[in-house]
């Protein structure tokens, strides 16, 4: 039996080093003055887009529910963070810029999360196009409400003006900090996807009725996913507010949300790698097309149609990049590790931003995934088959390098 050259812990280390290398690269580019404010601005925008898409990917790709209201949550987070930041200054509370930034974005996320639960509990009883239209409606409601709030316009708070853009927000966003927030977000979402919760959520995606019949509390899990997604959208909003320095209610509109949905579908639903790559790519692409200013939206829409026709599963499908897998591949070319401990080590993979997975690593038992899911609920039997459809079955396959759940999702969606 061939073994992976990396143990679980080593693969964590590799990922951490990978991220650190990426960070050092960013730092080197910024500190040496190679990066103009333009480049830095694009990097910042890309980080915000990555947080938005990876969190949206959780709802669209992992849970399999289409929402068109993510920018509603982003707007809630942005306005909360901006107004809180102004309030802290107005109240004369002394704190460093860094802690003000962090506190406000967490508050923005928390507020978005609360709204996520409020919206999610009733809305998630529906699915498919109906959920899409409900979330779209929600975003529009948020937009209309914000534009009618007196304290959320002009310079804000007590001197606010209704109907105006909120301006004069302190631009506290720091590229390095935002970079690490992005890494944390991706790490959390990656780990969540691989945790017992994540596998349960994938079971719901693949067959909700079967999942609920096997004892999963589907409502709880769906709302949980929705709330997590909303939280990170709120965080992204908080960063956005303190990067751009001004906000207007139109940001909550459905057209903006659709932009992020396009990014997720473009990258491949369910693939964090895909979300990251397409978020970065689709942030940079319009900038590269600036030279063709007049026709760039035309080019963009044609390109989108072509991708949907020729690669409907998105660029990456549900494939994930993994640094440790990549290293393994270098050493065992064409001779992938087999099963057992080695396979599990491979499971401890990382995405581009080098995030390690958890859960399965310690338990090489192939049934572990299924067990975890069933243990989540009380007195459940016969769940292994269903819960196993997601990541739980990963360890069973003879060759973990083969794409695993690529087809499953498409089938799941086409079933009817």
């Amino acid at each position, binding site marked *: 039996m061939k073994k992976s050259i990396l143990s679980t812990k080593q693969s964590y280390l590799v990922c951490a080093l990978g991220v650190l290398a990426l960070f050092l690269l960013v730092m080197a580019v910024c500190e040496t003055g190679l990066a103009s404010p333009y480049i830095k601005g694009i990097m910042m925008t890309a980080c915000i887009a990555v947080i938005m898409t990876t969190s949206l990917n959780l709802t669209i790709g992992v849970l399999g529910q289409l929402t068109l209201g993510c920018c509603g949550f982003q707007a809630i987070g942005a306005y909360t963070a901006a107004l809180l930041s102004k309030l802290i200054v107005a109240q004369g509370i002394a704190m460093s810029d860094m802690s003000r930034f962090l506190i406000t974005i967490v508050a923005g996320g928390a507020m978005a999360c609360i709204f996520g639960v409020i919206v999610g509990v009733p809305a998630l009883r529906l699915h498919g196009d109906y959920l899409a239209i409900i979330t779209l409606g929600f975003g529009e409601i948020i*937009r209309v409400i914000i534009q009618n709030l007196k304290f959320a316009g002009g310079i804000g708070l007590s001197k606010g*003006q209704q*109907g*105006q853009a909120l301006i004069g927000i302190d631009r506290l966003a720091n*590229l390095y900090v935002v970079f*690490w927030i992005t890494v944390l977000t991706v790490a959390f979402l990656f780990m969540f996807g691989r945790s017992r919760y994540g596998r349960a959520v994938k079971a719901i995606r693949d067959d909700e009725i079967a999942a609920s019949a096997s004892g999963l509390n589907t409502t709880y899990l769906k709302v949980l996913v929705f709330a997590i997604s909303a939280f990170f959208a709120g965080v992204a909003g908080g960063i956005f507010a303190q990067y*751009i320095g001004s906000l207007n209610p139109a940001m909550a509109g459905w057209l903006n949300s659709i932009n992020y949905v396009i990014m997720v579908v473009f990258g491949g639903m369910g693939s964090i790698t895909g979300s990251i790559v397409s978020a970065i790519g689709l942030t940079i692409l319009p900038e590269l097309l600036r030279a063709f200013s007049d026709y760039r939206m035309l080019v963009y829409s044609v390109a989108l149609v072509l991708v949907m026709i020729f690669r409907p599963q998105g660029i990456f499908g549900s494939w994930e990049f993994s640094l440790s897998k990549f290293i393994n591949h270098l050493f065992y070319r064409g001779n992938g590790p087999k099963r057992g401990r080695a396979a599990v080590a491979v499971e401890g993979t990382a995405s581009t931003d080098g995030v390690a997975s958890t859960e399965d690593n310690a338990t090489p038992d192939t049934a572990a995934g299924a067990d975890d899911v069933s243990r989540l609920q009380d007195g459940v039997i016969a769940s292994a088959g269903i819960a196993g459809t997601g990541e739980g079955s990963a360890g069973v396959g003879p060759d973990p390098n083969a794409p695993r759940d690529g087809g499953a999702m498409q089938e799941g969606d086409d079933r009817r």
Partner: protein
Amino acid sequence: MNTRFTAKFVTICAATGLAVSLAGCSGGSLSENSGSDSAAQGNTITLGSITTNSGTAAAYGEAEVAGFKLAISEINKAGGINGKKVKLESMDDKGDPTESSNAFNKLSGDDSVLAVLGPTISATTAAVAPLADQSKLVAIAPAATADSIESGNYLFRACFKDSYQGEIAARFAAKTLKVKKVAVLYGTGDPYSSGTAESFMKEAKQLGLDVVDQESSSSADDTEYSSQLQKIQASGAEFLYAPYYYSIAGPYIIPQARSVGFNGVVMGPDGYDGLKLTDNVSLYNKVYYTTHYSPDDKENSKVADFIKSFRSENKSDPNTFSALSYDTVYMAKQAIEKAGKNPTREQVRKALAGSKFDGVTGSFTLDKTGSPKKSVIVLEMKDGKPVFNSTVKPA
């Protein structure tokens, strides 16, 4: 969350925190000054422009670009600025603040750019204003009217402020038209619409006018206003202030107001310039608007020339956006010429601040907030043609 999951995540968080503190948070800040003081060399002068050329506000951006292009081609025919050819580096921001700030950053990184023309709408201008300060590059917004964007030292504009026009309209209603009962209709989603409406109401109340009804729409580009107009009609108002753009007031608001039986005066701000009319031009009688210039102004020869050359270039009549953006280019030209042979960006700003300017949209001086003080012209629609009514000098 189960404990294992939490524990691992907390570990990663801690590690990240450590990494952040090691990296030191001093760097990576986006608000450091990066102004370049190098003077523009070479044989061309670049003017950057940021306009909204796609999305729902595309018509306004396109009108502005038409104005820019006309002015620049005229300047180049006349020998350029300081003998150098002028090049327009035009960028589309889709009406999105992120795009406009990326576009501005891109322009500010190009040393040959001496001034930025734009952005189009108040939302994108608000995002650009702090960047202009940070990179010490002037931005001259042709038509971003919101009062609130008067921050910083590097943002200038060619248009009135919202509050200014609203006040003048109220005074015109009270003193010239001598009406008593006035009503307001505005779009809450649009800073221009709600800003002018707010200042109109404030001034109207001070002048002792009776604001009998105040109606609003969700956005400034709705198509159906009959419900609100019916209420305004029922309230007995003799005068309606409806600050919207030409594309909304022309085909929708005014005909709908007439069809619900409102026969009083309708008044609007400079957004009414180039009003889109329906076949029945008699509907537009008793419509007034405040604007910058009058087509039949004989004193200002620039107006006739501008309208003539705009028509021959674009096969259509100019609207406010084109007129203001045309002047914006000449404001930039005047400032660059005043700043010297090879001016730096900072010199351009100094030359522009407080300068006096004669253009199509009037003669004015920029005040210390970068907004012009200029006289307002009131036009009245007669058989579908705007006719000069009166001039209101700045207070």
